[in-house]
């Protein structure tokens, strides 16, 4: 094969000066480098967002604490939420899809490489604008202050009367700008998948990773627009004296909620579908079986995409909607459990009877399955309007969505990082460190977020900067905060593993996992042009066909 005789791409091994190499990264239009940039950028913000979370947990560890002031606490939860959603989860998953999708579909690059670079730098600019508020929140007066309106920034808190200074504007503009970047990237991913597939790769032969990223891109295209529109309206209200969300002039604060959550709920699926995508690649390879129910998985993914556009107001049960609206959103939210349940059964069905190999990526996938299931169950509880009236805006909700994001999405991201690291950098990650990372992080996760449900059930509202002793919340909050320590150590081990393996890891070779999708066909790391010869495929597992010419998949599909 032509591709194996080619020299390995010169990443990290070059003799050029540092300035030259940095310049290359800054002007790159290569989807692989942009993917790495996305992930690296997200990791920086992961540390920042993690520090903010830690500050909150220190403050809440014991009652009547004075570690930070209420004002700082408000800024911390606002910045933590905004950062983790827009500048960690989205870019890291965009990074995965940027890096992997063109390789998986046998393309040399994305459909629009320069637009790809533009999308990344817009997202990066958005994060910088948001964090500039720390120093520029009050403009030329010199005093900074981060936004403190919460990550969903409900009206009328964002009106000029209640949000003095410019910190809220940095929040608005930062998200607006990064939203443009997201739309550009989604457009690019969608076009790449539709137009750049190699010969033989029909839609029905695409890896599930690619399918789920297609639906993710579609959701970004329809869901980011409403956020952009709502942010523009808020800017008009704040700077031009508009009345969109100004109740004094007949405007409506509730319509901001609608607009925000029309974006906000599909956003959950924008984040979780790429996580599903990673899991759908890792589980078959480490169970030594093709994915169970490929076409049902595709159908479930597409229906999740559609249903997720019609469930947003389950975030608003406590606002007081009509009984018809409540009934509709309860029903549509419950309906989304059906395709999601199908997926969980299919992943379990893939593992069933397989020769399961418990390497680190698979461990994280198993944790994902268990934790995402529990997250879904508390989701169904909260989707029931009367239950939500009791527990809306309590720590039960906080525990629920962290179960989705940390227990589901982040676990999948960890799995993906161990799975594709050998492809990206050509070295294996260390298994021992990986297992330590896994166990410490999972223990920390469960200490924090299992026990966080309890103060919620006992009535502790979210976003309080402190609480009285003798409410029965003390011990639970202490356990929750202790879990953070384990998570921090886990994350540090992960970082250590990433750095150590880069220098000392075993050489991975093209296909260390004996996997079946096209990205394992090229060298590790792949050359700049991915494939010297564009591959031609005949089934969903082209590398299986190649390795088993006597019993290829295409005979049965």
């Amino acid at each position: 094969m032509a591709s194996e005789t080619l020299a390995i791409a010169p990443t990290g091994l070059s003799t050029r000066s540092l300035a030259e190499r940095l310049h290359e990264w800054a002007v790159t239009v290569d989807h692989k480098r942009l993917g790495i940039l996305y992930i690296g950028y997200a990791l920086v913000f992961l540390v920042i967002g993690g520090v903010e979370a830690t500050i909150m947990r220190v403050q809440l560890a014991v009652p009547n604490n004075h570690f930070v002031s209420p004002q700082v606490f408000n800024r911390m939860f606002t910045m933590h939420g905004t950062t983790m959603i827009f500048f960690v989860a989205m870019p890291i998953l965009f990074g995965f899809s940027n890096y992997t999708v063109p390789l998986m579909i046998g393309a040399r690059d994305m459909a629009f490489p320069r637009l790809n670079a533009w999308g990344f730098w817009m997202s990066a600019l958005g994060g910088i604008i948001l964090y500039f508020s720390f120093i520029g929140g009050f403009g030329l007066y010199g005093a900074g202050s981060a936004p403190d309106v919460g990550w969903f920034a409900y009206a009328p808190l964002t009106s000029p009367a209640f949000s003095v200074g410019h910190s809220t504007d940095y929040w608005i503009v930062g998200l607006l700008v990064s939203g443009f970047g997201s739309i550009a990237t989604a457009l690019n991913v969608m076009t790449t998948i539709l137009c750049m597939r190699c010969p033989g790769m029909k839609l029905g032969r695409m890896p599930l990773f690619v399918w789920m990223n297609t639906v993710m891109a579609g959701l970004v295209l329809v869901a980011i627009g409403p956020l952009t529109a709502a942010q523009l309206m808020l800017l008009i209200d704040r700077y031009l004296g508009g009345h969109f969300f100004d109740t004094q002039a007949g405007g409506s604060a509730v319509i901001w909620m609608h607009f925000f959550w029309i974006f906000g709920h599909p956003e959950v699926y924008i984040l979780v579908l790429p996580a599903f995508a990673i899991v759908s690649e890792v589980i078959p390879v480490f169970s030594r079986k093709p994915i169970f129910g490929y076409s049902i998985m595709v159908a479930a993914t597409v229906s999740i995409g559609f249903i997720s556009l019609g469930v947003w107001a389950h975030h608003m049960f406590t606002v007081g909607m009509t009984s018809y609206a409540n009934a509709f959103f309860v029903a549509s939210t419950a309906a989304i459990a059906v395709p999601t349940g199908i997926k969980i059964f299919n992943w379990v069905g893939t593992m069933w009877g397989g020769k399961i190999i418990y390497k680190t990526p698979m461990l994280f996938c198993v944790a994902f399955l268990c934790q995402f299931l529990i997250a879904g169950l508390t989701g169904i509880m909260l989707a029931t309007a009367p239950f939500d009236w009791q527990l809306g805006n309590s720590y039960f909700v906080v525990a629920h969505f962290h179960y989705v994001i940390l227990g589901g999405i982040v676990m999948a991201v960890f799995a993906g990082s161990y799975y594709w690291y050998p492809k990206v950098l050509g070295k294996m990650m260390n298994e021992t460190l990986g297992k330590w990372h896994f166990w410490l992080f999972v223990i920390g996760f469960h200490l924090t977020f299992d026990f966080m449900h309890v103060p919620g059930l006992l009535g502790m509202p979210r976003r309080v900067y402190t609480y009285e002793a003798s409410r029965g919340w003390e011990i639970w909050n202490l356990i929750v905060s202790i879990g953070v320590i384990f998570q921090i150590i886990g994350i540090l081990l992960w970082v250590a593993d990433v750095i150590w393996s880069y220098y000392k890891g075993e050489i991975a070779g093209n296909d260390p996992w004996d996997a079946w999708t096209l990205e394992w066909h090229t060298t590790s790391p792949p050359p700049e042009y991915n494939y010297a010869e564009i591959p031609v495929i005949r089934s969903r597992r082209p590398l299986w066909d190649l390795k088993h010419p006597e019993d290829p998949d295409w005979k049965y599909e």
Partner: protein
Amino acid sequence: MAAATITVPQSDMPLSANLRGKVGMWCLIIAESAIFSIFVVAYLYYAGKSLSGPTPAQVLDVPYFTSICLFSSSLTILLAEKALHHGNVKRFGVFWFLTIALGVIFLIGTGREWYRLIYQDGLTISTNLFGTTFYSLVGLHAFHVTVGLIGLTVIWLFTLFGAVKQEHSERINVFAMYWHFVDAIWVVVLSVVYFITR
């Protein structure tokens, strides 16, 4: 790859990479439509909810002439596309210029309407909910017309300098899709603002 020797049946071939411009533009149109739809929903939701005047019925006149101009520009750009497809660059330039002219007339019409609304009728973006939603929605559309006009003008200048040739026909088609979209949005805005809620 070993399978490279096999021939792939036509039905197994994915969409051609040549179509990526069109697919990309469709994606952009979907994303833009999502933005517009929220502004349209806000306009409809707040229709008749202003606490003070002026109301749409008092101050708005249907902009028949400029709307016809904008809609006609979709036709002229189509004729320009056809001319370039057949290699007639001169005819392309003429129709392309007509498209620009019609777009400019539309913008001038909007400007005159806004001048009258602000200085005679006293309606600004902060006057009442009608002002807020009206200027936002119509302004968002006018902004898109402006962006389209900038693109059209750049391409027209390229044509004057002889840089646009028959082989660029497909790219011109992609850009024209954006202009058609801007016209199509005006159908919605016109109906909502000047007919349904007036």
